């Protein structure tokens, strides 16, 4: 972890090194595209970059102590703009991009830079994305944009091609586990479980650590899954209808189930690959015994394609109903 110097970032050494070098040498790009699954650390890294650029302290930035670093940490720096859709699943609108452009047209208030972080940019409407193109093409000299997205494929190619890409990959489980214990003071057992469940997404693990109901929700959803396998199609559809009403819960549930069935598949295949749901080995073995490699692989596939369709704005209820048909029947 020390390799990341004073950036305070766990893992992602390659990305941090790249950005540190650019800051140190003054070869900063005007636009970075940070990609990776939700909770992997994109916003954290983008904020660290902003702090490094805006820092007014001594030594290698960010010093973490100067006024600029403190304002960035508190979300109050006048030269740092964070834009995102209203909530996960909503869209980032053209008016938000226009307002940002208005602010970016003005010279920086306190430092040398204006930094804009555009979170979940895959949620931008086409017109919003097109509007941003103008800024990407001719940014004012003091502007640095950090465009964040889960996947570059889900952005307009014209956006991607105008940014320097910084893909962030999930961290090794051990790194997440260690960070949870050392930095966030998690109990070792809890840290182990969360690290596995997180799939290497430290942000997700930290959020879940702080969210008391998260583990209860997980237990409920795994119980739901168990239940679904034993009920009629009509009852499954009823479940799908209920679930589809909440896009956030749908996403969370699909992610969880994907991890679960992947584990089932791995157990059934008798591989040594690390499992996600480490606390439920016996249940996994039971599933593996019941469904075998082929069928569990098919379920993973069905879940993946459902998640993919939802990302592409398919009708949630229909998608989930199709998924219900694909789940193994009793």
């Amino acid at each position, binding site marked *: 972890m020390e390799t990341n110097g004073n950036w305070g970032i766990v893992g992602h050494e390659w990305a941090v090194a790249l950005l540190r070098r650019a800051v140190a040498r003054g070869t900063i790009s005007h636009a970075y595209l940070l990609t990776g699954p939700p909770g992997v650390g994109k916003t954290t890294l983008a904020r660290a970059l902003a702090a490094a650029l805006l820092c007014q302290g001594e030594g290698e930035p960010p010093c973490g102590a100067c*006024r600029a670093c*403190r*304002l960035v940490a*508190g*979300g*109050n720096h*006048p030269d740092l*703009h*964070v834009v995102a859709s209203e909530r996960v699943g909503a869209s980032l609108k053209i008016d938000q991009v*226009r307002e940002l*452009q*208005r*602010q970016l*047209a*003005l*010279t*920086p*208030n*306190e430092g*040398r830079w204006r930094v804009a972080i555009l979170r979940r940019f895959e949620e931008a409407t086409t017109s919003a994305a097109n509007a941003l193109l103008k800024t990407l093409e001719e940014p*004012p*000299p*003091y502007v640095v944009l950090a465009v964040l997205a889960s996947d570059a494929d889900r952005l307009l190619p014209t956006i991607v091609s105008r940014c320097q890409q910084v893909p962030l990959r999930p961290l090794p489980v051990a790194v997440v586990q260690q960070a949870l214990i050392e930095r966030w003071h998690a109990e070792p057992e809890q840290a182990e479980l969360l690290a596995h469940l997180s799939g290497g997404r430290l942000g997700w693990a930290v959020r879940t650590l702080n969210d008391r109901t998260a583990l209860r929700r997980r237990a409920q959803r795994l119980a739901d899954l168990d239940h679904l396998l034993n009920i009629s199609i009509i009852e499954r559809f009823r479940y799908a209808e209920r679930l589809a009403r909440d896009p956030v819960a749908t996403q969370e549930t699909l992610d969880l189930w994907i991890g679960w069935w992947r584990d089932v598949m791995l157990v059934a295949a008798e591989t040594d690959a690390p499992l996600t749901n480490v606390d439920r080995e016996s249940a996994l073995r039971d599933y593996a015994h019941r469904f075998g490699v082929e069928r569990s692989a098919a379920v993973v596939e069905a879940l993946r394609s459902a998640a993919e369709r939802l990302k592409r704005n398919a009708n949630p209820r229909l998608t989930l109903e199709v998924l219900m048909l694909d789940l193994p029947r009793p």
Partner: protein
Amino acid sequence: MKVSCLQENLAKGLSIIGRAVSPRSTLPVLGNVLLATDAGRLKLSATNLEIGINCWIGAKVEDEGAITVPARTFIDLVNALPPERVDMELIVRTQTLNLRAGRSEANIKGIDAQEFPIVPVPEGEGGIPVEPDVLRTAISQVTFAAATDESRPILTGVLAKFEDAQLTLAAADGFRLSVRTVSLPQSVSDPFNIIIPARALVELGRISGEQKEPIVIIITPTRNQVLFQLTDVVLVSQLIDGNFPDYRQIIPRDYTTHTVVDTAAFLKACKTALIFARDAAHITRLHIKPGTELAPGSMLVSATSAETGDDVSELDASIEGDEIEIAFNVKYLIDVLSVVGTPQVALDTTTPSSPGVIRPVGDLNFTHVIMPMHLGR
């Protein structure tokens, strides 16, 4: 912080900085005003990250310190106080401002002054002094031509060009251009250009009404801000980055018709035409007819409304050149005629589809260009 001042001074200071408060910003602290002791006075600041205003008022400072408090609440409270002495004390532990005046006492929860953006103040000597009346007139002649639509941010600004002993202000919104030059008492060492948001200049015009001393224009060393220093007030504006269109190319060099009319009469005719032109995209026709041996030249200002009828005003005009019919947006005519500032105004035209140029007669410092309108094809 422990400080006392007079209610009138505090209320007046707040009214000066009040317009720079931005209550609906993503940064909550921008909805606050900063109160800070500063060299035996009380400094009030507000900023919306585009325009910031500092205002100093006389005060008795017992303890140094600073705090930001919600602007709306604080201003309403101060305005409601009796015109007496106001005592304010910051309770640091709770970041609460305790305020007493007469029999009133209030506690306002604040936000740490450290979180407030820096609103720069002039450092040291230097700067370019300008006569306040001249600058105010120039602002009124230029800012109205700046764009209000944000799609091209650069056009929402006013170009300020400092060269030798002259400041040129220019603004254009895509349909019209205003250019005004102002003499400076001394030459600048190196010519430079900045683009100032029109809103900031309008605000400067508003708060400089009582200013008698020259207004000093200061560019910060980073070239990121321009400061206008008034007596006890400093207005700071961020600048707009980019290249302003080359306005000189837009001003036509020649004309085929030169028309001089009475400014007030022309303005009145336009205001009448506006009543009828409202429904027709403000289109107003000028029919310029040079005089003959027997009759003086005339300009007919006419507008037609499908719903309310039509209107024609005839003005005496002294005309050199050809007869011409040309149409303009009457709102644009009214805007410029309201600020030309001379009894007579000149309009130069060439063809119905080329720009018209308006200048005050006897004042070479102001030029305004308007694009014409068309009916049909």
